[in-house]
């Protein structure tokens, strides 16, 4: 007699109280489980349903909205696998496919910044690995409270060190991302990580257990009592023990094991030894077994007694819910098991046959010889509750829009404009990020063509042909607050523009949707507007959403964060040697502004830095103009017409020009027409500044005219100062001092 809550006992004791509420299930959801099973669930089954029907795993509040990504997706021949897989897969030509995805690790990173952020990297890398791809790069999109807030000094260094520790030890170059600060993230930082992987088309793997008699193998780290907040509830409720409370609820990462797991998996794939594979992330064995079985439309029998444990005291519910890191689950044909084990042994990876695929359509598990789980797997994996949460436009929204920054005092005259530029350049959100990014290995693997400080990260995929990819992530919570529909489209447009500025053709989109509580109707309005905006934007730009991640409950008490959709855009470079960097490099190269500038300061960096203001309308979205601009930038790069290109976003032309000068230490002289303040600091979208290769001026002007993109000749590169004629000049050294001093001054 094991003392376990068996299927037989569950059937015999229908009235036994169970701690479903502590596990996060409503009484309706608990009753629904009873309906599915025709009896009360066992403790182990309750563990499975509680994690699989959690917001994190089931998307129960977001699913009705996220459908728009598929429904309004533009036709794309490039999409090989889409939403619902571990990550989307995109055809980039020459037989290569790329898979990429953003994932959030916000809450763990606040509780335990180092391990929270580290395991965030580990988790997204396994998602990519599970698609059959070799992970080739990571990016990180980070948002914190005010840079000088005491808690930011605790959280930021820990998060950065965790990403550095895990990503560097995996040998994955970090090729860029974002760093932003806003009071709304003070008690709820956002740590979103992106991973991208590469494979040949034929290497695509799916999370499906098929073929009766095929073996189910758990491999990687042992299973321990980490990351099981929910299971501790069960353990306490069942055994009355107090030890569980002392267990860490944030997982601890071992990147060395993950590196071995990566190489081991790639060898297994190369040997054709895997018919289905799933990574173990949130909800661990519970999630992997139910999703594999549901994905294959099969049944599965699992013996929990053979799961290798770090702590022999773990019960079945804890084994199922453990979020121990660096584990994978594979489905293997019986005749391949020996060779599978040989590959694992070569890499020193522990592998154990824990079960097999059956034809019963049931997921069955035993522990100490008794049956503790017997459920239809799809009921946990795919058929969870779906909620149409109440939606209500917040009462204060109109007042927010009416709070026009036009009323704010503006800098006038050369000295004030000069001071405004330097103050923006030195503000934490626009300052040089080297304090952070120098902690990341951007060179490993030897294929990094562009990385942090550039508009997008660029990775070479094929050394012979020069085929490569570009990736950018962008988001702006202030725009999201003012108008979540437009804010999502502006984030998409910026990432799209950034990718195009390097010369890449934008191809596909991933997203990390960071919002407050879905139980707040105002937050649900923000969410539904943002999703609608993003879906419409992707349709207009012709780039499909391939997958992503929703993170709700980002709030402190009753105050949600700004709606912060982080959008990642993937682009393709036919030849990475044609990439266009940010920095000016040739004296006399003409500098040209592309796009239209209007007085748009709602949610702008200037309004925030100069006045702590966030109100009015965000910049106008014109996706047709974005497409035309991108067409000019990519064609000009392919034809070799450009020396430098930089998108205009936060801080407008002033910050863009300063960054163009700072990259290589070369100045420029520009002459601006009209209102200088608007010209310098407006954040009108669909704009970029370029330096034309001397001799290519006419060809470039003709190209821009052909696409109907407005052109404004600003001046030329050269000298050792940024000169705005008739107004002010700033030596590049002074720009550099303002730009580089801020973060080291705060973080040491």
């Amino acid at each position, binding site marked *: 007699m094991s003392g376990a809550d068996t299927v037989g006992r569950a059937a015999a004791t229908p009235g036994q109280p169970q701690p479903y509420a502590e596990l996060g299930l409503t009484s309706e959801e608990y009753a629904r489980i009873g309906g599915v099973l025709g009896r009360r669930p066992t403790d182990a089954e309750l563990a499975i349903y509680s994690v699989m029907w959690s917001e994190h795993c089931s998307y129960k509040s977001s699913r009705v909205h996220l459908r728009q990504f598929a429904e309004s997706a533009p036709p794309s021949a490039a999409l090989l696998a889409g939403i619902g897989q571990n990550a989307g897969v995109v055809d980039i030509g020459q037989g290569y496919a790329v898979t990429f995805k953003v994932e959030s690790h916000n809450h763990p990173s606040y509780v335990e910044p180092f391990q929270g952020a580290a395991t965030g990297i580990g988790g997204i890398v396994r998602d990519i690995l599970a698609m059959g791809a070799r992970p080739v790069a990571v990016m990180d999109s980070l948002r914190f409270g005010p840079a000088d807030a005491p808690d930011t000094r605790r959280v930021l260094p820990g998060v950065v060190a965790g990403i550095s520790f895990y990503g560097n030890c995996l040998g994955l170059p970090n090729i860029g991302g974002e760093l932003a600060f806003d009071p709304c993230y003070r008690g709820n930082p956002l740590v979103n990580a992106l991973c991208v992987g590469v494979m040949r088309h034929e290497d695509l793997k799916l999370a499906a257990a098929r073929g009766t008699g095929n073996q189910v193998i758990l491999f990687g780290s042992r299973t321990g009592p980490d990351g099981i907040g929910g299971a501790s509830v069960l353990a306490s409720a069942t055994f009355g023990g107090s030890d569980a409370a002392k267990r860490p609820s944030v997982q601890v990462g071992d990147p060395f094991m993950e590196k071995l797991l990566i190489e081991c998996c790639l060898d297994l794939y190369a040997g054709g030894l895997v018919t289905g594979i799933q990574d173990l992330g949130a909800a661990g064995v519970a999630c992997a077994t139910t999703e594999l079985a549901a994905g294959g439309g099969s049944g599965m029998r699992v013996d929990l007694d053979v799961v290798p444990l770090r702590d022999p005291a773990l019960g079945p519910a804890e084994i199922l819910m453990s979020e121990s890191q660096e584990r994978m689950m594979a489905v293997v044909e019986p005749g391949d098991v020996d060779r599978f084990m040989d590959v694992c042994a070569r890499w020193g990876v522990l592998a154990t046959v824990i079960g097999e695929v059956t034809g019963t359509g049931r997921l069955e598990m035993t522990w100490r010889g008794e049956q503790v789980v017997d459920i239809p797997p799809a009921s946990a994996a795919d058929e969870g509750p779906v909620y149409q949460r109440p939606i209500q436009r917040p009462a204060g929204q109109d007042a927010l829009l009416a709070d026009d920054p036009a009323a704010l005092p503006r800098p006038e005259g050369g000295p004030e404009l000069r001071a405004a530029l330097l103050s923006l350049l030195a503000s934490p959100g626009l300052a040089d990020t080297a304090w952070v990014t120098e902690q*990341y290995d951007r060179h490993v693997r030897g294929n990094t063509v562009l990385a942090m400080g550039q508009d997008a990260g660029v990775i070479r995929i094929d050394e012979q042909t020069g085929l490569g990819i570009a990736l950018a992530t962008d988001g702006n919570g202030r725009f999201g607050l003012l108008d979540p529909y437009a804010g999502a489209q502006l984030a998409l447009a910026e990432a799209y523009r950034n990718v195009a500025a390097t010369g890449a053709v934008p191809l596909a989109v991933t997203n990390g949707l960071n919002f407050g509580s879905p139980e707040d109707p105002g937050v649900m309005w923000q969410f539904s507007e943002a999703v609608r905006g993003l879906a419409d934007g992707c349709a207009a730009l012709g780039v499909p959403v391939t997958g992503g991640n929703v993170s709700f409950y980002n709030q402190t008490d009753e105050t949600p964060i700004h709606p912060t959709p982080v959008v990642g855009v993937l682009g393709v470079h036919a030849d990475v040697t044609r990439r266009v960097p940010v920095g000016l490099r040739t004296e006399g190269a003409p500098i040209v502004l592309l796009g239209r500038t209007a007085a748009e300061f709602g949610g702008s960096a200037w309004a925030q830095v100069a006045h702590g203001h966030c109100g009015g309308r965000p910049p106008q979205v014109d996706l047709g103009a974005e497409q035309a601009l991108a067409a000019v930038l990519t064609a000009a790069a392919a034809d070799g017409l450009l020396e430098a290109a930089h998108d205009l976003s936060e801080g407008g032309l002033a910050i863009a020009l300063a960054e163009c000068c700072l990259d290589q230490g070369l100045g420029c002289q520009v002459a601006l027409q009209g209102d200088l303040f608007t010209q310098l600091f407006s954040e009108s979208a669909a704009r970029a500044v370029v330096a034309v290769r001397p001799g290519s001026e006419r060809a470039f002007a003709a190209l821009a005219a052909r696409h109907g993109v407005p052109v404004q000749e600003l001046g030329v590169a050269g000298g050792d100062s940024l000169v705005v004629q008739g107004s002010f000049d700033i030596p590049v050294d002074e720009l550099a001092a303002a730009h580089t001093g801020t973060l080291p001054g705060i973080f040491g």
Partner: protein
Amino acid sequence: MTARVGVITFPGSLDDADAARAVARAGAEPVPLWHGDRDLRGLAAVILPGGFSYGDYLRCGAIARFAPVMGELVPAARAGLPVLGICNGFQILCEAHLLPGALTRNAGLRFIDRVVRVRIEDTRTPWTADYAQDQEISVVLKSGEGAYVADPATLARLAAAGQVVARYAGANPNGSVGDIAGVRNEAGNVVGLMPHPEHAIDALTGPGTDGLGFFTSVLRAMVDQ
């Protein structure tokens, strides 16, 4: 016949593919060696690449030192085989006592990935012969435990014998004593280097081509033999 240069992969090695690429770019044939190998297969030179062998557990390089392949490499190195350890490879060579001194946590205690200027101070080794004496090169430094330390007597001996192969030319990035970026053994065939020359072989993916000299040097040394 092309010269064959081995590149060892330990569990956790990361820059092995980059070292192999640099060897090929220099015109030699890179040959993968596995940490469990007990045969150097007649290779003319061997590189220990960067990374986190065995997860840097215990101490950087402390476990790799006991890998089976090291049982072959140590006597071969003592007998004159050209060996280059880069970053983690340098740490392993120190732990294996093929090179003097040790690598410790950076001053500032943070990992640094930065392009640095390095001055080549000894061009008599098989790995540096293609450089000019005191030539300054741009290479990538990327490490968390790159601060070179040794006791004063060892430092004096290294200086007297000209065993400091490279020093940081600009600001000291990691607190290395005497700005030391790389050292060699007494015979000169074993060189350890904290910065990564294999990441400076192509202006497309690195700070230029200044690092290629390490790989062309050893190729020439082998051809001249």
